């Protein structure tokens, strides 16, 4: 958010250290890999990193919305698998055109997500439980559609639509950027977005202010399902085939992208740009470790550690203003006098 049109003379520059920290961490990781392996910072390889981050970025952006409402969506991996299978099946065996295949997939994804939302709002299930259940249901459906067999020979036009290059730029990357811009506008520049953030901050407050929180939540899970579907379709295009379990690896990494990017699992906070950088960091780690010939087992260890470090740094940065011994980590959000930002304004009154 920019700070324009503020008429106070000494214009205060707001730097969000949390976001900045993520960018700095990403830069460090890129530089380190670049130093260790001269192939890492080549244009071709960076493009590979970006491409490999796309699916996580797409699913992670949806997850960011969900996490901002204070929820979680464990069904995204299954949704991606299910949508991939359904769309591929429709295109290959029933001759659906690629564009319709894509749109059908997105609709299925939205419905799968919205169903999560219905379970959470009307059946009042906790998001973790509701999506844990549908994770299994959607995965099962993905097997049922084709009896567990993969769908090969996805139409070439579909592959071109999601997995080709425009003037050297991968289409998937363009899609991610477009989605991210739309998501940012939706979150930061619409009534809906403000209601999402308020619902995550205090659902009761939003409800008593007249926000229809059920509708907000159903839509948010619908968005998550839709973006999971898009991610799943990108995966299908990338390997020209749909597999019943193709989406499952993306559940944890999508959550990780959002969390590395600063999304707060207790709700009310999260950033689209942060999630993109989170996905990029994970992509760079995978790619860089492969270049360094590190066994793939270690990659999981490193990824896990990066998530832990990111969250620890995030917690630390929230604690910095009161780094004084015993008080650290104590719940003290509500005491206004402790908050550094208040100061300037308060002291002017004296």
């Amino acid at each position, binding site marked *: *958010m920019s700070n*324009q*049109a503020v008429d*106070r003379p000494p214009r205060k520059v707001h730097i969000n250290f949390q976001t900045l920290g993520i960018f700095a961490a990403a830069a460090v990781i890129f530089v380190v890999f670049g130093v260790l392996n001269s192939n890492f910072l080549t244009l071709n390889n960076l493009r590979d990193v970006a491409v490999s981050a796309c699916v996580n970025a797409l699913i992670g952006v949806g997850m960011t919305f969900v996490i901002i409402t204070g929820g979680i969506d464990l069904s995204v991996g299954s949704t991606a698998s299910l949508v991939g299978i359904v769309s591929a099946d429709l295109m290959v065996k029933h001759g659906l055109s690629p564009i319709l295949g894509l749109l059908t997939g997105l609709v299925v994804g939205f419905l799968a997500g919205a169903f999560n939302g219905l379970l959470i709002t009307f059946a009042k299930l906790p998001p973790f439980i509701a999506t844990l259940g549908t994770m299994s249901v959607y995965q099962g459906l993905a097997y049922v559609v084709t009896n567990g067999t993969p769908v090969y020979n996805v139409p070439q036009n579909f592959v071109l639509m999601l997995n080709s290059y425009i003037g050297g730029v991968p289409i998937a990357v363009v899609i991610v950027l477009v989605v991210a811009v739309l998501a940012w506008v939706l979150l*930061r*520049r*619409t*009534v*809906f*977005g*403000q*209601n999402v*953030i*308020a619902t*995550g*901050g*205090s659902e*009761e*407050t*939003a*409800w*008593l*202010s*007249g*926000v*229809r929180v059920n509708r907000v939540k159903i839509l948010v899970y619908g968005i998550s399902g839709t973006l999971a579907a898009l991610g799943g379709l990108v995966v299908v295009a990338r390997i020209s085939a749909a597999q019943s379990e193709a989406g499952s690896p993306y559940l944890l990494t999508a959550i990780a992208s959002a969390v590395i990017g600063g999304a707060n699992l207790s709700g*009310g*906070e999260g950033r689209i740009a942060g999630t993109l950088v989170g996905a990029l960091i994970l992509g760079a780690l995978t790619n860089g470790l492969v270049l360094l010939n590190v066994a793939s087992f270690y990659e999981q260890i490193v990824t896990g550690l990066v998530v832990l470090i990111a969250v620890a740094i995030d917690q630390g940065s929230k604690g910095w*203003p*009161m780094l*004084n*011994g*015993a*008080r650290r980590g*104590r719940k003290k*959000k*509500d*005491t*206004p*006098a*402790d*908050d*550094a*930002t*208040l*100061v*300037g*304004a*308060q*002291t*002017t*009154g*004296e």
Partner: protein
Amino acid sequence: MSDILLEFKNIAKYFPGVRALEDVSFTLRKGEVITLAGENGAGKSTLLGILGGSLAPNRGTITVEGVVRSEYSPRTALAEGIRIARQEPAIVPQLTVEQNLLLGKTAAERREAAPAVDGALADVAAMGFPLNRRTKLARLSPAQRHALTIARAFAYRPKIVALDEPTTSMLEHNVAAVLNRVREMAAERGVGIIYVSHRMPEVMTVSDHVVVLRDGRVAYETPIAETSTEEIVRRMVGRELLGFHRQHPVKPDAPIVFTATGITRPGSDERVDIAVRAGEVVGIAGLVGSGRTEFLRAIVRADPGCGGTITIGGETAHVHNPNGSRNAGIAFIPEDRKHQGLALQMPAYANIALTAAPDLVGPGPFISINRQVAVSSELATSLALKPANVKLRARQYSGGNQQKVVIAKWLRRDSRVFLFDEPTKGVDVGGKAEIYGLIDQLAAQGNAVVVVSSDLPEIISLSDRALVMRNGHFISEHVGDDINEHSLVASAMGIAKEAS
């Protein structure tokens, strides 16, 4: 002198950019009750934090029974015999009353703690809350939890006890019992007590000595016998504060603009009616748990299963949820502003925009941050919001200013009915006067105003008409001189006449 229990000497505490305390010195003697007074943000909580060891001062020392404290940690403070009963009770809701009283004790200590537990339970009962030791805390009311927190502070032979707003959620007779207990502990066992409260009558009754903090410094310190309520309040706010009187009482011929008829809620057979005239402020008094909050929530349909008919300006309003209530022109300012009135992590302007006033949203589904900030800033100016910068997050404001933000949410919506639940709970004296002025203005504009409050002086100074609720229905109506403490309390407790 040997009877000095506690000495604060030149205590200073800074948070980045904030001077929370500067050069605070005073002493507490055995058997003495000192009231620590001051507006929100004056530094009381910080000082208690230092006393309790959870904060270390940047300068200055604490001396307990002649020994200078060398290390600041909650453990040290406990070892020194210091107990603090906080404003927001430090309890575990999933545990029982007894388990909470034993919290932090080792198995060996627990065996010896039986008398202390019995004593604490007796204390709680004496305060008017007979509790079963096996009841889980989650099932207790806020007042009961407060009582338990106080009793726990006294349970293990403390030397020094600090009570932070212990009576906020309590009613007169409970308060009297709490004050008795405080005096008793001081007089009989020589406990030194630091008492923090905004309620002046309590301060005058309970304390020997008063220390007023203002902007982190000791602004006033005197034996209670040598001062007056007015003087203490004046020192707290640094200016004269007159008793509040409504500038715009309701006009005798004002028409009824708001009715709620046959309001019901699940689990109760009561059907409750209320009618409010244009420009009228109706106060609703009653004991905690009498159903006042539930009544307001049922009007705006905050909970499922509520029923009843609502008319505004003579027309039936179709209210099925808070969204419908908002669109019908009803503003609801709930009791718990931090969890029901605000999204604390959002900036003030975004909180104000939550009610989707036409000025603050659009075009279409979009918002303009600049316009939200501009409109909110206008509201901030008219409400004298401090700090006036509406880009600050809601949690960065003090209680009274947070309440202004909650009220501001409803001012651009053509709301014609204002329902306030405990509008000044935890708000300091200066903030109270401002909020009263605002309520008076809202009435003067021809709105219907309902104020639920446990603070009787608040009901008395604000109301054109006062209703007393008991067991879920109104049992009496008071106007004119009949709106007085005695009459309201008698009615609320079911002692006197059962009128209307």
